[in-house]
């Protein structure tokens, strides 16, 4: 089973590589799509367990950590961009910083909405 997987994967990789190097985008795209389909099929057929409650709990923590890290990073980056843009008169940098700060706000708002959703979904209200 494992050997078959490796064989198919390397074959598809070769197709994608040939498609990409010869500039035939549809060939590369088809290779990627077929690969994704094949993987989904194999996963379903093999019946192996890939996610369980521990993986889900870890995923939740990783997602939260990612959220915090990205928010802080993008927030600081946007502040720096706005500050540098203002000082050097580079409007593009300032606009980029502004958009980044909007992204941080969006991130926080989406987080709180999804949190509220799951809070209600697993709450005792109904």
């Amino acid at each position, binding site marked *: 089973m494992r050997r078959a997987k490796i064989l198919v994967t390397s074959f598809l990789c070769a197709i994608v590589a040939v498609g990409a190097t010869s500039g035939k985008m549809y060939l590369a795209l088809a290779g990627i799509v077929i690969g994704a389909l094949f993987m989904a099929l194999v996963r379903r057929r093999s019946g192996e367990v890939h996610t369980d409650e521990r993986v889900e709990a870890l995923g939740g923590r990783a997602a939260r950590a990612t959220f915090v890290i990205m928010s802080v990073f993008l927030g600081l980056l946007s502040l720096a961009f706005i500050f540098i843009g203002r000082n050097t008169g580079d409007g593009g940098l300032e606009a980029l910083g502004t958009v980044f700060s909007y992204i941080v706000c969006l991130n926080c708002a989406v987080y709180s*909405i999804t949190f509220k959703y799951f809070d209600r979904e697993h709450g005792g209200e*109904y």
Partner: protein
Amino acid sequence: MTRQKARLKNLGFCVAGIGFLMLLFMFFATASWIGYEVKEVCEEAMLKYEGDAVEALIGLLEDDAADYRARNSAVWALGQLGDARALPAVKKHFKGYEKGARCDRGEELCQYELYKAVKLLEGGPNISAFVWR
């Protein structure tokens, strides 16, 4: 059944809220980008022509020797700035616009651009300008 309904309602609120936020974000991002473009056009015009931003843009618009692309963006920027001082200059070039008419921005002053600018200068609504003005 009622629980199912409540869950659906919860999901609906969640999806609608996130969708609304995405639209709001796209609006704000586009608006700040428009502000940046306007600023760029103004700065470029102020290098060549005298006066404040609006005067420099009018100078660019009136300069027959200037590139038509630059003059068209000057019209656009004047409309976005919404300063009534620019109205006579813009109206002078405006000959009338029919819906669906196409224009070559490199060869002529685009009548559609002028039409939009006149509407904005006459006090038409420009919601995106509130973000960057």
